[in-house]
């Protein structure tokens, strides 16, 4: 891949925009599993992703590789790397799919009421495709400009809903048991998948120190923003209502309007988020294409973008009939993807131990 250099700030911005958008606007982001509260699932997913990322970083350090792909290659071989790349591409593609579905719900329900969903999908994908086409630099530098707007609009919105906050909605703490909370957390792990991209994109370019700093910055920004958002959303709506609410962000903006704090400005904020969503779709599409091109040794990732674009639109159209099966499959894939670096660390530790024993 002949991509330009990007620095720490760009990495932080694109990763934060991506994680925040996926948390806020994906279709199932606020859907509890078995009655568990969403914010608990969010917390679990954050903790799990942090552990996985740390494991991956340690694995890179342990193997002495340049990046995550290098570390994988040294431990599980090139075939394993290809499998990992395909799996990761699938998760990124799924991120595009879910985000598109979530935001299309907002647009189809509230802005273009009489337009078919596929039309809105094509419209949004046709906007995201050129950005993905332009590559990494375009995506990341656009994120530098868009992230402040998203943060400002998010916090304006949160300020506008303070009158509707009800702490009782955060309880009961246990929900339907620890297993359900963990399951919910695992289902939301893909929202953090872009963190791993930092280890693949930034580390080879800028070194370990910058990559670590970028990871820290993007994780903290995403955690704070998405966490506050999730907690506020949970406090504003009851658990039962939240589980059946596909467009939480829009409902929150309506709440702002209903409170009379910002009049119709709540709706206007949707358009700021749209910028973030389009950018996230583009970036995820790009990373998905990048991983696939790496897996199949294709020089130009652009060749893969149109098929991915078509697959997203097609999947949106047939989603209703295959929803259950696909969700289960992807949840499993996500789980395995995040378990892979853990296994990798263990493997590298064992190999390192064996080498040391052999040397003695």
């Amino acid at each position, binding site marked *: 891949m002949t991509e330009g250099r990007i620095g720490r700030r760009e990495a932080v911005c694109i990763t934060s925009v991506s994680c925040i958008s996926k948390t806020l606007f994906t279709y199932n982001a606020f859907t509890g599993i078995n009655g568990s509260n969403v914010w608990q699932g969010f917390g679990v997913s954050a903790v799990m992703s942090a552990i996985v990322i740390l494991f991956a970083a340690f694995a890179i350090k342990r193997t002495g590789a340049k990046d995550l792909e290098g570390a994988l290659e040294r431990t599980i071989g090139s075939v394993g790397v290809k499998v990992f790349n395909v799996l990761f591409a699938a998760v990124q593609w799924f991120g595009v799919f879910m985000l598109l579905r979530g935001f299309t719900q907002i647009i189809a329900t509230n*802005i273009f009421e009489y337009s078919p969903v596929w039309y809105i999908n094509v419209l949004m994908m046709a906007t995201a495709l050129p950005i993905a086409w332009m590559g990494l630099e375009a995506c990341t530098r656009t994120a530098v400009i868009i992230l402040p707007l998203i943060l400002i609009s998010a916090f304006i919105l949160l300020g506008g809903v303070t009158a509707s906050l009800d702490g009782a909605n955060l309880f009961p703490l246990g929900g339907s048991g620890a297993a359900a909370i963990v399951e919910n957390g695992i289902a939301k792990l893909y929202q953090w998948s872009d963190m791993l991209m930092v280890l693949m994109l930034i580390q080879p370019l800028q070194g370990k120190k910058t990559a670590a700093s970028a990871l820290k910055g993007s994780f903290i920004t995403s955690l704070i923003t998405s966490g506050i958002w999730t907690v506020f959303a949970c406090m504003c709506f009851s658990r039962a209502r939240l589980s059946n609410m596909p467009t939480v962000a829009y409902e929150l903006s309506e709440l702002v309007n209903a409170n009379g704090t910002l009049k119709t400005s709540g709706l206007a904020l949707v*358009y700021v988020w*749209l910028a973030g969503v389009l*950018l996230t779709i583009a970036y995820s599409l790009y990373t998905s294409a990048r991983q696939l091109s790496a897996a199949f040794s294709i020089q130009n990732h652009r060749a893969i973008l149109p098929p991915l674009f078509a697959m997203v639109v097609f999947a949106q159209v047939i989603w209703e009939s295959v929803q259950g099966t696909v969700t289960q499959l992807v949840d499993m894939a996500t789980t395995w993807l995040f378990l892979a670096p853990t296994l990798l660390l263990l493997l590298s530790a064992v190999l390192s131990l064996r080498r040391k024993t052999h040397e003695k």
Partner: protein
Amino acid sequence: MSFFDAIKKAVGLNDNYDEFELLETEPGIPLDGEDTQESPPPVIPETLFPSLDGNLDEISKDFQKAKNKDLVIRRFKIGGQIRAAVVFLTGMADVRRINDYVLRQSMAESIALDGSRSIIDQLDEDIIAISDTKKTDKFDDVLFAVLNGDTALLAEGEAAALLMETPGFDVRSVNQPTAEGIIRGPQEAFNENLRTNITLVRKIVRCTDLVSEITMMGGKNNLRCAILYRQSKTNDSLLKEIHSKIQQIDVDYIMGEGMLEQLIEQRKYSPFSQILTTERPDRASQLLMQGCVLVICDGSPFVCVLPICLSNLLNSPEDIYLRPLYGTISRFIRYTGMLLSVFLPAIYVALLMYHPKLISIPLINTVLNARRMITMPVYIEILFMMLIFQIVRESGLRVPGAMGQTVSIIGGLLIGQASVDANIVSGIGLIVVALSGLGSYTIPIYPLQFTAIFFRVVFVLAAAFAGMVGLVGCTVVTIAYMASIKSFGVPLLAPYAPKTFDRSRAFIRTPISKQAQKADYLNTKRGNKP
């Protein structure tokens, strides 16, 4: 003669059709069809001949002396002994200077010639009183020098020539800037003379490390250009890239900096300029001091500055002459004007067509009342008014002198009022278009005004197609596109995206003492940090 022939003759049916029609012939083939092959380019000898007549014959042949009356070949004898000649183009060279300081002195019989040095060396060192001279043995050099207004002196038995700088063509004096006028600050502008323009920069940048390389650009018209940079500061890779781009130019002719800009920039179809063109020596010098490179074309009153970023295009040269607070306010107004210019019509279209819920009830009532009698869809109305605005602007520019302003004002007032009265457009639509048009004039760089016009139309169409969704989508794509553009390796959105240490030149006009004196995104020689 038959009856029919008589009629044909009477009405001229047998007359030859002899009207000249160039398009009906093959390219370059004369009408008589005798010469069917394109003549090969003349072969110019590499070095001069020792024979004076041989050299003069070759020059005469190259310049088509038989037909070309501009070329002057004045033969004479140096010190009454050695045959010689001066060659120059009348009008391009200063005849008085040639007479007084070359011919009169060389022809004086009192001069003593010694055999230890060549004639050309003796003339150069002892006799000719011209300050800038150069000895050459290359035929090309002689031809280019003569074409540039210099004079070539050739002597019998010498396979070399003495080139003397004797330009004598008329030059416009240094005037006030017309396209980048400011109230506070220098009031000088570049003119069409290469030497004058270099001097205007040197007057400000009095540094020993300021280098001005003069080189020929590609193109058969042999236009000269000067590349100015600070040797101790400018990035070497940047210089190499610029030299390489200029050397690679392969076109029939270049008329000036406008063509050069398009030939050397990376994205030729981009609506964004990747090179700044300025007519202000102070602005060019400021950027030169920071580490940029100037390319000055002979015959052009604008200078190319490269590389640049968007803030260079948006900031006015006046900003640095104002106090920081006023400089910042001025920038804020300018940026607001630019945003209004680009987005206002599109937002108006999107809100009215798709999202009236976002407008307060009193305001939407006012707008709907104003549009009650208008039959055109709102986006057609806006596009129509934008077209009218541009026609009035364009006609104002083309009409000579003070008439232009009159045409603009009268045209704008009359057409605007008449359109509203005739219910072709609404008053509010007119205000929106007028505001966006005025906003575009706050953009200090002329080519960027066209960029604003282009995106205004694109955004209106996007808004008409999909409301705010279309507008936001189009905006994000535009930002991403801007983020992907580089001006000779410098990202267009620097110093914001990517972020660099020096953001003093962007939105906030910080005090001069707090500003870094060089732009770190140019990666100058003395490190990256200011």
